């Protein structure tokens, strides 16, 4: 501690630069994670928050609710399967609605908002009890825009928001949970003709104690022309989610690699630069631990301070841009990222530590220089 603290104090500029570099990388890392989290949640939130334990698709739809088309009657066939408590049709489509005179793209999810079609929880208001009522959920990246009591106009129907659900949007768009009849009316109005509107998927709630995986297999066996996925599998199967996750994972990986290289190279250079001091310490009787400890303390100080600064700046920036950007950081995201950066920083210092351990105290007696 004696050596490390004094070295940091005397080389404040050098250490500040590295702390700044680590802070910048942590800021980017957390910012990307917040964006990716919000983007992914905007895509998957509706499925994750669904009251359904299982989603049943048209077998040709490749588990994509946007292209799945099932006759409403399939819900009755699904209800007959052992382990199914409730099965109901769910219609899902993007519409252009009118709000305060302006056109706005919205997702309409039609079904029983109190049954498998509705979100698990609502944070404000109540669940709809009439065809012209809706639960609203917003994708954080899409901004706010709608509040409890607001009305949108869809296919000549005035729909009033009576409840709000958090993080239960689809397609990163404002999402309205309405009765299936309301959805069907919007579909026929858009088509310009009357026909029996099919469901997109069938939402299933299983009996208490029933295993959704077992029920899923039973549905696929007993109902022809469908595929069924448990809710977690349905989330992963949503189109675009895998690609977005993979793209951001590559970015995270690159940032982690850069943190490791920057920290490792800095401490390696530092170790080479102060080789004479380390040789002297070993020569006058410092045990190996006494020359390793300052390096470790400095690594923890640099990555710790850099992570702290990066986290605070990221949190502040995201908070400032909340109204326009909507992305947020969770404590667990920060903790995991900072923990990973600290561990990588320590791993990066292995090269410097190996150099320190290889120091020959006899080098202090050589005139021509030090070998480490």
């Amino acid at each position, binding site marked *: *501690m*004696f*050596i490390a603290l*004094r*070295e940091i104090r*005397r*080389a404040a500029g050098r250490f500040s630069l590295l702390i700044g570099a680590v802070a910048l990388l942590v800021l980017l890392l957390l910012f990307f994670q917040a964006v990716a989290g919000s983007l992914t949640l905007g895509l998957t939130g509706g499925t994750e928050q669904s009251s359904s334990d299982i989603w049943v698709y048209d077998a040709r739809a490749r588990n994509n609710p946007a292209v799945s088309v099932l006759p409403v009657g399939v819900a009755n066939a699904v209800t007959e399967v052992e382990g199914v408590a409730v099965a109901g049709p769910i219609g899902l489509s993007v519409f252009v609605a009118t709000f305060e005179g302006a056109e706005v793209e919205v997702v309409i999810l039609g079904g029983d908002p109190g049954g498998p079609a509705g979100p698990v929880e609502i944070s404000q208001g109540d669940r709809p009890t009439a065809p012209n009522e809706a639960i609203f959920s917003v994708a954080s990246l899409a901004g706010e825009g709608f509040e409890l009591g607001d009305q949108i106009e869809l296919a000549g129907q005035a729909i009033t928001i009576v409840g709000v659900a958090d993080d239960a949007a689809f397609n990163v768009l404002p999402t309205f949970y309405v009765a299936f009849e309301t959805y069907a009316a919007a579909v026929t109005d858009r088509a310009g003709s009357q026909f029996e509107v099919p469901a997109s998927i069938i939402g299933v709630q299983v009996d208490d104690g029933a295993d959704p995986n077992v029920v899923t297999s039973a549905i696929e066996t007993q109902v022809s022309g469908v595929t069924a996925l448990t809710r977690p599998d349905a989330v992963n199967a949503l189109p675009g989610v895998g690609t977005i996750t993979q793209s951001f994972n590559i970015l995270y990986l690159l940032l982690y690699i850069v943190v490791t290289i920057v920290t490792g190279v800095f401490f390696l250079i530092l170790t080479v630069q*102060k080789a*004479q*001091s380390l*040789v*002297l*310490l*070993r*020569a*006058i*009787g*410092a*045990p190996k631990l*006494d020359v390793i400890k300052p390096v470790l303390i400095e690594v923890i100080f640099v990555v710790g301070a850099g992570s702290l600064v990066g986290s605070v700046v990221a949190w502040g920036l995201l908070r400032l841009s909340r109204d326009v950007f909507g992305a947020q950081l969770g404590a667990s995201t920060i903790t995991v990222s900072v923990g990973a950066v600290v561990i990588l920083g320590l791993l990066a210092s292995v090269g410097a530590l190996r150099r320190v351990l290889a120091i020959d*105290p*006899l*080098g*202090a*007696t*050589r*005139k021509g*220089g*030090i070998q480490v």
Partner: protein
Amino acid sequence: MNTLVVDQVSKIYGEGDQQVKALDQVSLEVASDELLLLMGPSGSGKTTLLTISGALLRPTDGSIQVGGSELTKLDDKELSKFRNDKIGFVFQAVNLIPFLTARENLLVVRSLGGGKVDAGAKKRAEELLDELGLGSKGDNLPSQLSGGQQQRVAIGRALMNEPAMLLIDEPTSALDSELGRQVMELIRDEVKNRDIAGIVVTHDERVLDFGDRIVEMVDGKIT
């Protein structure tokens, strides 16, 4: 009473045809409060003898005792501790840590091996700096000190842990005559006042009168 007893010590570097005998059955005794000047041409084995006596290097053969402790029986860890506790080194090339002040260069000795820089250590560092004429330079970094002042700080650092033996390699090689004599005077006074053994390796014939005894080495042997 002898602080250092070197008995039939040999040191061979390399193997096979590449072998070089740096020390050839050297025996030497240095008493407490004795200042020994070790002289000889380059490559005669002076620095090897100094480093073996200071527990920095193991001999190939023979026995080394410092303050009654047999150094050849100690492992690396014990040798480190021994150097910190019993030996005061002043090297020719590397002596001060550049990012520590003069005072901290003394105090760092106390922080080694789990030691603490307590009030006692701070008091001793101040006393040593005063004694070495550096009372007002305690907060200066080595780069802010002259060559002579740096050499005095190094002597202070070597004395910080109250060693049994002071080993100094070419203390005057980078100093002018006057400064060289001042430094030698200081070393002699410290050895006498503290009742410790001192060995100074030197080529400088201007300072020969400071030693109690002069030992000359040629080809790894004491002549």
